[in-house]
């Protein structure tokens, strides 16, 4: 028990229990959510760089008409790789990474729920990313776009193994996303610090919770889509073959039933980050906590009612189109509520213009543009003119980069000190923000005009007689400005990591629990689990938080609490490090990759999976196992 120990002795015991020892083997076996989140983050940002380089390649090709720098096959691989990398290997995982790092700290617990599943999820997404990028290196990357419409991706037109690799990469990333979603839901519902009732949960945690539910509801659709595609290609089922009674539109329905919510999977965490940063740098509690939570939930629900707006030109019945126009327009209301609450918070507070807040201000300005162009394309007649043109490319980059990457970069500046114990530079931060904000708008705003001038998306080139060359050259040059901003950002990250100013536990004087422990936090997160009696406990009790005692120190233990009031219910053991999730991930990968080539991989490949799962769950008689 920890009651009798003084602080130093307690820390010694906790470290002994929780710390990951040195060595490769231990690193592979660790289940510390902070270490895993760090791996996720680094991996996701590497994919951001790779995806960005592909974008630069596209912009070089498009800078002039009929350029022959990239041939059409390469170009098609590149835009598919760019979209798939950015969506599945950067945007979604990076938000999950932030959740894995921050949620346990913000709810005041010692580790994420199902920490071994967490370790497993990382190895899975890593292999999925490697699969995609190794196929690209071998000139065999998918070339059918990030939504891989059949029949182009089907057995008849999709040559080689390219579309199979795409489909299986989807399976990898979704499997890992699903695992993380379950961990987040359980962590938030069952592991909150005593007293953190539903109305005291930090907004970031709320947004991650809604995101996790969206993942859980959307994944079955994409799993169905990618599995049936592979079946069509591998064992000649005919889900999508009209000649045999299949239906090519079925693909679009199931893909977008997942694909549209995917956008909110990326955006909602960003909204949570923006809410956090706005509150901290306005020096006051967020205005409209309840409306914001309601807006998050409403967005999550509505997200499932508007997938058809990606299909407005496939020839649907008019009534259906009307419904989906109205529902797509309606999502502007919760988005508006969020914007207005942030504005009110800034208006009521005394804004401090630190880099994180700059990124959030940039986010509001650009995201409103993306939201408004979203309202435009929600109208069926409007959309018939801009669908699949550069107008849409502009729209979704305003939403994805302006709406998610900007707040994410702000969040990195904000939480970097927590994660590393070191501050990033305000001076470089301002440069990074300025270059990225300016570069982004100069790159993407003109694309709206290109779209209205008739330039379709996914073209590897265009003819000189079309009036697009000037704008395209301008866009390509502006993209260099944008890239230079990212270069400054990464330089700052590397510099700060090695030699940034020490941060101290709470450099921003923020109010939520992650700032109640040292930076970086110890392996066990909190010496004693705090007791919460406010939304921003550190603002209410700047000097000392009340804490609980009574957890054992001879094994990993944390507090399980009730869903609504977060009343402590039980002492719950938390799993120790284990190498089995790693082996299970390897076995799963072999099965999934094998099934690209032969259906028998599913049969034989399940045996090693079963073996590794038995190893994973084998009772070992340790304290953690026996309660």
């Amino acid at each position, binding site marked *: 028990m920890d009651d009798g120990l003084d602080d130093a002795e307690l820390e010694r015991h906790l470290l002994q229990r929780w710390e990951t020892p040195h060595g490769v083997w231990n690193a592979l076996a660790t289940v510390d959510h902070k270490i895993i989140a760090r791996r996720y983050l680094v991996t996701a940002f590497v994919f951001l760089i790779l995806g960005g380089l592909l974008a630069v390649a596209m912009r070089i090709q498009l800078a002039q008409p009929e350029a022959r720098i990239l041939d*059409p096959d390469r170009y098609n691989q590149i835009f598919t790789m760019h979209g798939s990398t950015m969506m599945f290997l950067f945007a979604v995982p990076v938000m999950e990474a932030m959740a894995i790092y921050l949620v346990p700290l913000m709810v005041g617990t010692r580790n994420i729920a199902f920490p071994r599943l967490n370790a497993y999820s990382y190895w899975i997404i890593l292999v999925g990313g490697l699969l995609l990028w190794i196929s690209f290196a071998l000139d065999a990357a998918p070339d*059918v*776009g990030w939504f891989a*419409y059949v*029949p*182009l991706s089907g057995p008849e037109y999709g040559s080689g193994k390219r579309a199979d690799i795409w489909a299986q990469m989807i399976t990898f990333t979704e499997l890992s996303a699903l695992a993380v979603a379950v961990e987040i839901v359980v962590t938030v519902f069952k592991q909150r610090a005593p007293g953190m009732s539903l109305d005291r949960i930090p907004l970031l945690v709320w947004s991650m919770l809604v995101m996790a539910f969206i993942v859980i509801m959307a994944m079955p659709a994409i799993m169905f889509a990618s599995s049936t595609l592979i079946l069509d290609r591998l064992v000649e089922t005919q889900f999508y073959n009209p000649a045999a009674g299949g239906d*090519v*539109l079925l693909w679009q329905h199931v893909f977008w039933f997942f694909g549209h919510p995917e956008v909110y999977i990326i955006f909602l965490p960003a909204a949570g980050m923006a809410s956090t940063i706005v509150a901290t740098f306005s020096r006051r509690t967020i*205005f*409209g906590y309840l409306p914001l939570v309601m807006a998050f939930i409403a967005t999550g629900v509505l997200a499932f009612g508007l997938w058809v707006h990606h299909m407005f*030109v496939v*020839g649907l019945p008019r009534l259906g*189109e*009307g419904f989906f*126009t109205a529902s797509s*327009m*309606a999502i*502007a*209301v919760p988005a*508006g*509520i969020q*914007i*207005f609450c942030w*504005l*009110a918070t*800034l*208006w*009521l507070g*005394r*804004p401090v213009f630190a880099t994180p807040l700059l990124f959030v*201000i940039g986010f*509001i*300005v650009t995201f409103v543009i993306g939201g*408004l162009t979203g*309202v*435009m394309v929600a*109208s*069926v*007649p*409007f*959309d*018939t*003119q*801009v*669908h*699949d*043109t550069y107008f849409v490319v502009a729209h979704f980059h305003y939403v994805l980069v302006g709406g998610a990457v900007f707040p994410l970069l702000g969040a990195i500046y904000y939480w970097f000190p927590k994660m590393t114990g070191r501050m990033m530079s305000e001076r470089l931060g301002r440069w990074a923000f300025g270059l990225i904000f300016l570069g982004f*708008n100069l790159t993407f705003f003109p694309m*709206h*005009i290109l779209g*209205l*001038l*008739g330039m*379709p*998306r*996914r073209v590897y080139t*265009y*003819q000189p007689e*079309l*009036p697009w060359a000037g704008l395209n050259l301008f866009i390509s040059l502006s993209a260099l400005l944008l890239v230079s901003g990212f270069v400054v950002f990464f330089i700052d990250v590397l510099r700060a990591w090695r030699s940034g100013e020490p941060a101290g536990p709470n450099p921003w004087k923020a109010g939520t629990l992650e700032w109640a422990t040292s930076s970086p936090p110890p392996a066990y997160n909190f010496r004693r689990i705090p007791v919460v009696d406010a939304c921003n406990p550190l603002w209410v009790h700047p000097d000392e938080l009340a804490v609980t005692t009574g957890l054992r120190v001879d094994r990993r233990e944390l507090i399980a609490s009730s869903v609504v009031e977060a009343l402590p219910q039980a002492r719950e053991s938390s799993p120790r490090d284990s190498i089995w999730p790693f082996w299970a991930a390897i076995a799963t990968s072999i099965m999934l990759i094998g099934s690209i080539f032969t259906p028998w991989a599913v049969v034989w490949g399940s045996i090693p999976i079963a073996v590794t799962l038995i190893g994973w769950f084998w009772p070992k008689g340790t304290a953690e196992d026996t309660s």
Partner: protein
Amino acid sequence: MKSTSAFLLLALLVSGCSGAQSVLNAEGHAAIELRTLILGTILVCAAVWLVVTMALVSALVRRSDRDGGAVSERKAAAAVSGAVGATVLVITGLTIASFYTTRALSEAPTPELTIDVTAQQWWWQFNYVDQNSARAFVVANELHIPVGKAVRLRLKSSDVIHSFWVPSLAGKQDLIPGRENSLTLQAERPGIYRGQCAEFCGLQHSHMALFVIAEAQADYERWAERQRGAGAEPTEPEMVAGKALFMARQCAACHTIRGTRAAGATGPDLTHIGSRRTIAAGLLENTRGSLAAWIADPQTLKPGNNMPLVPLTSDELRQLAAYMENLQ
């Protein structure tokens, strides 16, 4: 202000642009309705953006007279509720405008002409159907329509999904294997309108253009009458040799020239290729030189397209090109 300058730019484009393929250069019944909706919506949205941005700026700079007390909390609550109410109003207004446009578009007059459009990788086939099947004819990549008349297109695909889009005339509509869609075109002014496939369809998606030529009824009739006829007989020895080559080599296996043995169905109908403005779905202007260049090496000009390289000597090339050009 970005959005105002953007609007100025838009206004400029609307007035000054005679671009062949532009939403803003609307010359068709549907496109004109759509342009009104599009510019109206953009204007409303630009105003909304301006208001939000101004609110943001004032929230950031206005710092002296803040009391931070209960009064301003209440003021903020009122402002937020008001803004949400305004959002609902704007959204409702835009939705209604959208529905009205849809209704206006569906009230197009009954079509006087029906054309079957079949898209394939990477060109367009237009079948001018007729109750009297002897009067039906097929052309590729160049659609002639009478101006001021509603024309119904029945849209089909024979391989993957494509999308028919001639922005100056109407919004786009997909062509989907296993389904049939339809689209009504009505050009209000004579002209040549460029269009392009708008759904990614593989390697040469970028080079899958088409031209709609809207002309006076009489011109249209004359054109159609000529298209119904068989391919012109060669008049010069060079062309005669070209025709013989066409029949002897792989050409005839894929292309049709009505009035000859050539009846292939894989590639575009070439009966009147010489009368077309462009070849290879808008890729090249139609001259004897570009015809020869295309036949000599289609894979370099349009990598991945479905026409194979047929080995020919330069004399043979010249003869074939001459024959093609003569197929007026």
